[in-house]
């Protein structure tokens, strides 16, 4: 059951071979059984009534009755939403995020909320107030972040689908480290309303599942213009058609030789090259492209994202919701300081400080504005590249899942985002799909598409998954 695709699950439900309640129970039981070893989940919905939920949903849809876990970044009405932070450890939103609403309307059954790096800031899920998440492939290792809980949950088959978010790589990198498929859509495709903001011009809600086909089915239901989000685009929605075969004839795939050179882990490099060969064998043509300004991407990102975050997090002052310091406070400023210092973890505080610095007078033009200019240059680089190719295939992470506590100082983690950040800055659709593991640890390949063309990368990934089975592998401990 747990290794069936969404289409197969829907088929079973439609044939009444299993009821929605039974299907939800299968996964709920796994959540309860396995979560203690993973710490992937913050909240497990014991008393949902799937029949109840289904009654309000689209019976005919391909997602009706399918269980789902939301990253705890998405506001869920009357269900705790913590963003992995002490600041929101008891926060219960009075409304649903648009993504939550849409998937509810599609008939999906939410069974739990996933652990994450606090306020989506991190690449290892070691920065959650609620404790680190373990990688299902090796409990001593990290699952990646910030959507570490979502990735671990899908990898361990605690759920067939999990929502997640990606700002600088927070879907792609954990997907790669956990051996699953995850997609970040184009900026503006999926409404940010109700998704707790980290960096507003970069954040996008996305989805993680076992296969690209599964991801596509869910993404189709998630996306769409939302009047409540001024940055959501009024673009033509697309309708997912799974590819009939794996033929990639005529597909021009861009590769960046410079990035391959930078892969110091030889196993990862070999897996990547092997994956590219698989595509060539299907008829794809590899084209060398370059992103001349990509080496500035990490620096630009670590100005822009913290800057936007520093303002987005100012609302956490203890007055209207969330944590408020229990200590006696001399005055309001004292209350602000105590509340925020207690409520935010170290990484979040560090990024707030960084963002405050980048925006302060004297630095704004040299750093913040300059970073936005670099974003422009990188965006132009991609446009140039896409004038020659249809999709790009590049690495996700220069390393496999590292050990918990290995990177005690956050800064060394930042540089590891070098392959994921450029597409984030340019707002492009991008995904990670599993390829040949390295020393038994998952490795991912990143596909990047032109703006709004999620279909190009999803169909390329789906084709790849027709002739490979990396995406079907799962950690033995959870079989």
């Amino acid at each position, binding site marked *: 059951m747990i290794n069936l695709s969404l289409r197969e699950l829907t088929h079973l439900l439609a044939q009444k071979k299993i009821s929605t309640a039974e299907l939800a129970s299968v996964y709920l039981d796994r959540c309860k059984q396995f979560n203690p070893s993973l710490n992937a989940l913050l909240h497990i919905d014991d008393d949902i009534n799937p029949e109840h939920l289904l009654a309000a949903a689209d019976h005919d849809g391909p997602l009706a009755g399918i269980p789902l876990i939301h990253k705890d970044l998405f*506001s869920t009405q009357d269900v705790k939403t913590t963003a992995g932070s002490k600041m929101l450890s008891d926060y219960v939103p009075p409304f649903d*995020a648009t993504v939550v609403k849409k998937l509810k309307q599609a008939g999906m059954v939410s069974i739990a909320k996933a652990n994450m790096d606090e306020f989506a800031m991190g690449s290892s899920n070691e920065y959650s107030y609620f404790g680190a998440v373990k990688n299902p492939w090796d409990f001593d290792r990290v699952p990646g972040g910030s959507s570490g809980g979502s990735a671990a949950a899908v990898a361990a088959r605690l759920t067939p689908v999990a929502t997640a978010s990606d700002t600088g790589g927070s879907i792609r990198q954990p997907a790669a480290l956990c051996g699953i498929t995850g997609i970040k859509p184009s900026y503006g495709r999926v409404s940010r*309303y109700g998704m707790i903001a980290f960096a507003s011009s970069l954040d996008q809600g996305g989805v993680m599942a076992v296969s690209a086909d599964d991801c596509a089915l869910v993404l189709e239901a998630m996306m769409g213009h939302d009047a409540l989000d001024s*940055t959501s685009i009024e673009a033509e929605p697309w309708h997912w058609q799974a590819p009939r075969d794996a033929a990639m004839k005529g597909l021009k795939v861009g590769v960046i030789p410079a990035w391959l050179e930078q892969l110091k882990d030889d196993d990862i490099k070999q897996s990547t090259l092997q994956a590219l060969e698989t595509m060539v064998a299907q008829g794809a043509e590899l084209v060398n492209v370059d992103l001349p300004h990509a080496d500035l991407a990490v620096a630009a990102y670590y100005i822009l994202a913290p800057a936007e975050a520093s303002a987005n997090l*100012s609302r956490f002052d203890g007055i209207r919701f969330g944590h408020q310091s229990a200590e006696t406070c001399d005055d309001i*400023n004292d209350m602000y300081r105590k509340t925020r210092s207690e409520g935010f973890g170290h990484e979040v505080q560090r990024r707030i400080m960084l963002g*405050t610095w980048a925006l302060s007078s004297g630095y704004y033009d040299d750093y913040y504005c300059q970073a936005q200019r670099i974003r422009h240059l990188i965006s132009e680089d991609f446009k140039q590249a896409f004038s020659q190719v249809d999709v790009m295939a590049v690495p996700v992470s220069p390393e496999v899942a590292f050990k918990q506590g290995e990177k005690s100082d956050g800064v060394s983690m930042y540089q590891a985002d070098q392959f994921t950040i450029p597409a984030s800055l340019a707002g492009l659709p991008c995904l990670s799909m599993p390829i040949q593991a390295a020393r038994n640890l998952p490795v991912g390949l990143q596909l990047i598409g032109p703006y709004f063309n999620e279909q190009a990368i999803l169909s390329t990934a789906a084709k790849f998954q027709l002739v490979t089975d990396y995406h079907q592998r799962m950690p033995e401990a959870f079989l």
Partner: protein
Amino acid sequence: MSQQWDVVIGLEIHVRLALASKLFSGASAKYGASPNSQVSFLDAALPGTLPVVNAKAIEYALRFGLSIDADIPEETRFARKNYFYPDLPKGYQISQMDDPIVGRGHIDIETEDGVKTVNITRAHLEEDAGKSIHDQYDDWTAIDLNRAGTALIEVVSEPEMVNAKEAVAYMRAIYNRVTFLGICDGNLQEGSFRCDANVSLKPQGSETLGTRAEIKNLNSFRFIEKAINFEIKRQKQLLESGQQVVQETRLYDAEKDQTRTMRGKEDANDYRYFPDPDLPALKITAEMLDKQRAAMPELPEAKLKRYIEEWQLREDEARQLAYDVAMSEFFEQSQALTDASPAENAKFLITDFNALLNEQDSDLKANKISATHYAGLLNAMSSGEISRKIAKQVLTDMWNSGKSAEAIIEQQGLAQISDSDALQTIITQVINDNPQQFEQLKAGNDKMFNYFVGQVMKQTKGQANPAQTKQILEELLNND
């Protein structure tokens, strides 16, 4: 020799836009609701909420910009102004920084020395903060977020006012303008119009500006004049005793008639402005501007010109009418319905009609006389049917009864007696009753004309046509 000082005043005026909903959320913007009952999730800054801009706020801002002849950019953006205060839920205010919706413009003000043009640096949209209530509890400040997120236009003047009177005149000019345009309800008590004054002194003739102090939240024309005058005096005293003026924010205490330092607002705040990433830039198109031009009522300045050039009104009368929204409307409406000349209409309106309003302790907003009825009265005067003196009476009756002029004239038989035969009969009677005076008149005492006209008027209860009466008298004299 004592130092002479130049006073430099700049004003920042916050105009609350008359909108049904807030600038970024669909919560109601109505004044006076029970605390925290007009607060959307966005206004409370719940995580994940996002701003969506009110179309009418943009329209009103453009309308204002066009009315002050301002430069309007092709693109405008919102920016975050970051600081912490309990009535500012997000910890930042969404305002505008580098690309304000209204650029440089100007407006005329009335000073003792005539009309002065004051330049306006810019005007931009921003959201208002909530209200902090300090006197509800001893140890707590109570916060009401109803006002948080309502739309404001901040109008920033160049520092071109040189005394308190000019500052008040400028404040009035902007006040009249925004109420005239219909973008602000002008309710001072409700805080629809607030002014911050930046005051500094410099040695007379010096090019270098002195340090300025800002006096915040003045919402009365009277108080702003007093506050500025106090501040000027205070700064003068400081400077003349060799001390410095501190750059700070001050509040005006109306009871003590003085300004004092505002505690609690941390000084030297770096607001770290940056473009709001939740809001793309707004494109301002020619269509949008044309729409606002079409929606704009004719400005007083334009009316003034028109009244003088097309209708030959005297400048002082034209000015009085043009700058009064209600008066000019009533004037134009009635003028369209009457044969009387604009000059006659204007004169009657400004003197007699106003006198009635004063007597009734009322104003044109509560006008009980329709433009149609008033036009009827003007017609009766200009056709000679009644004299101006009678018209004043009729006007009062019109106010009290709601009836038309014609109805009242008929009912009370007030029509002016211009029938020669009827008049002649009356005049003859009066002459017979006053033989001695008639002899005097015959003897050449021309002053007696007035006596007889007066007597005829008395007889006819003011209804005799005075000119005609005199004419008939003269004829009778000549015939005699």
